[in-house]
């Protein structure tokens, strides 16, 4: 993104001193701080309401593998693993594809190709989650179970994490849908990061007689590296918190998956499917604790990602 060099330091700092100005200034200030207030309230709410479960289970809440409302035992590990595993699949698939696409769009493609392609990928980001879910249930899931999953199970099924049977529902299908959902993020930000690399880097490399590809791998990518990692982490953050599409295809099974074709459950999906009916008291508190875990994970990743992206593009960069 362009470097908006003006620091945000109070453009109207001194000028805005008359009464209407002060009113306007503080009025808009209150609204701006709404964002901070929402975040603070949300965090406070999760912390306060997770107390009961966290007090009862302590740190073993994170390591517990059983979610048993009858016995009143709640452990978060199956959901944490389900969340991380589905997002991991998405990152493994989306990073190479997304990065190569970003390289193509920023460095290789002629404008008349790059512009419509970029446009198409941006539109992919506009598809609502629930539409991805609908498509996943009726089209993608059955397709994957007949093709990719069946093939992997036949050839690699002896490796436990690729064991079948392929049902077209579960971690893998969820991972593929998440891939589609985070690709636009990874492509768009990586492309911006690559574009932000100064031309002097490229020229130096080409002057040495490097091919286009050598220039990209040796001069452009190292320069943009931290920003690209930031893009991937932002994608990861989105995948971890994604709810509806995952809920519809992951199988809602609160057990630790043994294979990538197993059904599983993510934190967000568990909250979505059970928050409205979870018994008041311990079960609800355990769900809120799951939410807190999710908040901590996504916030941490976001912070890291923003810092990395800011290093390349400055704080006014990609939002």
């Amino acid at each position: 993104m362009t470097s908006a060099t003006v620091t945000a330091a109070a453009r109207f700092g001194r000028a805005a001193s008359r009464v209407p100005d002060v009113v306007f200034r503080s009025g808009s200030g209150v609204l701006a701080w709404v964002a901070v207030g929402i975040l603070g309230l949300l965090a406070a709410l999760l912390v306060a309401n997770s107390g009961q479960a966290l007090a009862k289970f302590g740190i073993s809440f994170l390591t517990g593998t059983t979610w048993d409302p009858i016995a009143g035992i709640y452990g978060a590990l199956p959901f944490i693993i389900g969340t991380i595993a589905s997002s991991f699949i998405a990152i493994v698939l989306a990073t190479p594809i997304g990065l190569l696409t970003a390289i193509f769009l920023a460095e290789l493609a002629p404008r008349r190709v790059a512009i419509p392609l970029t446009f198409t990928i941006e539109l992919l980001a506009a598809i609502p989650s629930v539409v991805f879910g609908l498509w996943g249930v009726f089209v993608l899931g059955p397709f994957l179970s007949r093709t990719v999953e069946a093939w992997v199970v036949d050839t690699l099924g002896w490796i436990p994490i690729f064991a079948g049977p392929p049902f077209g529902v579960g971690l893998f299908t969820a991972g593929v849908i998440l891939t589609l959902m985070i690709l636009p993020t990874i492509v768009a930000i990586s492309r911006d990061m690559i574009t932000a690399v100064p031309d002097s880097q490229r020229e130096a490399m080409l002057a040495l007689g490097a091919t286009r590809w050598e220039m990209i791998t040796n001069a452009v990518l190292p320069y943009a590296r931290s920003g690209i990692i930031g893009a991937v982490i932002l994608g990861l953050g989105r995948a971890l918190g994604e709810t509806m599409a995952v809920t519809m295809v992951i199988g809602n099974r609160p057990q630790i998956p043994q294979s990538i074709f197993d059904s599983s459950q993510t934190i967000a999906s568990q909250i979505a499917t059970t928050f409205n009916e979870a018994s008041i008291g311990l079960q609800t508190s355990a769900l809120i604790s799951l939410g807190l875990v999710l908040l901590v994970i996504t916030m941490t990743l976001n912070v890291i990602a923003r810092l990395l992206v800011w290093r390349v593009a400055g704080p006014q960069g990609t939002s």
Partner: protein
Amino acid sequence: MTNRASRLASLAFGAIVVIAGCTSPGATTGPTTGGQASGPPASGGMSQPQVPSGNVTLSGAGATFPALLYQVWIEKFGEAHSNVTVDYQAIGSGGGIKAITQQTVDFGASDAAMKDEEIAALPAGTKILHVPTALGAVVVIFNLAGADGSAIKKLNLDGDTIAGVFLGKITTWNDPAIAALNADVASNLPATPIKVIHRSDGSGTTNAFTTYLATVSSEWKDSVGAGKEVNWPTGDGAPGNDGVSGGVKTADGRIGYVELQYAVVSGLSSAAVKNANGKFVAGSSAGVTAAAEGAVDAFPDDFRAAPIINGPGDDTYPIAAYTYLLLYQDQTDATKGQALTAFLHWALTDGQSEEKAIGYAPLPAPIQQKALEELHRITTGGSPIWPM
């Protein structure tokens, strides 16, 4: 507070109407505008509760088990009383109990009676009435193509086998345990892996089904137990009876459990289940009625009946359950209270005749009588809405 909120919200909406330029007839009005009908109820016994004359909307949420019945009832009742709108969201029995506890609905619905600790969790002073409305069968549905490619439509299953499947011990359709019960199709049973679909939400259907499994299988009882939401040994979760039947329908080899009518509307086959007399009985309205008639004497005074499991009789279907509407005994909004009482009275009388045709079983006469008497206990501001 609610009124002020909705008035505020209506104001906000008014602004939108102006901006968006969309025309909307005032089809609904706030809950207070039916006020002219909310005078003190006439004293003396009325043959039936009066429907208020103003527009009323009742919001309810809960069980998916009776949702197909309630949808029909709501339409029929709405045809007779167009000023009363009943908005029922099927979110699961657990959701119904939670909503009535948090007072986020006008009425709840559940086919598992509230447990003591759930009653204890109610806000101080709140009393909930359980009004039984119907019975239903929990049937085992499956989606299975035979080894020769034709769909298998009939299967016999007994308690041990069903428990084996849902415990994850029986994993393929040609398992000897299944074949032994189905000699006629044994050679056609495929090696297809069994995929269990169970509920992901708190469910009265699950409560009835796991109560059955805990009755027939000591292993189930010890390792899983019975309740609205259990730690399933195998299978995928899906929300609602609709979600389970939808899930079973999407792919070959799947098995699940739902209220009978969901099997009917989805076109899925359901298994004949071995009953207490050793007969294999398919789920049916008559089979549930037989179960209910046999358990009338066991119906508790507080209305909180357990699922009827393995009732006696050759024709009795072994997994049946009552379903309840949950209401606040004291209705804060008199108009809504009147409308709710009138709707329930209609459901317990005229509505009962709808049940057989759509896969539910009407209440046995003695229980129907008790349920109607329960309506006399609904009050508003301390006085009964429908006095004796």
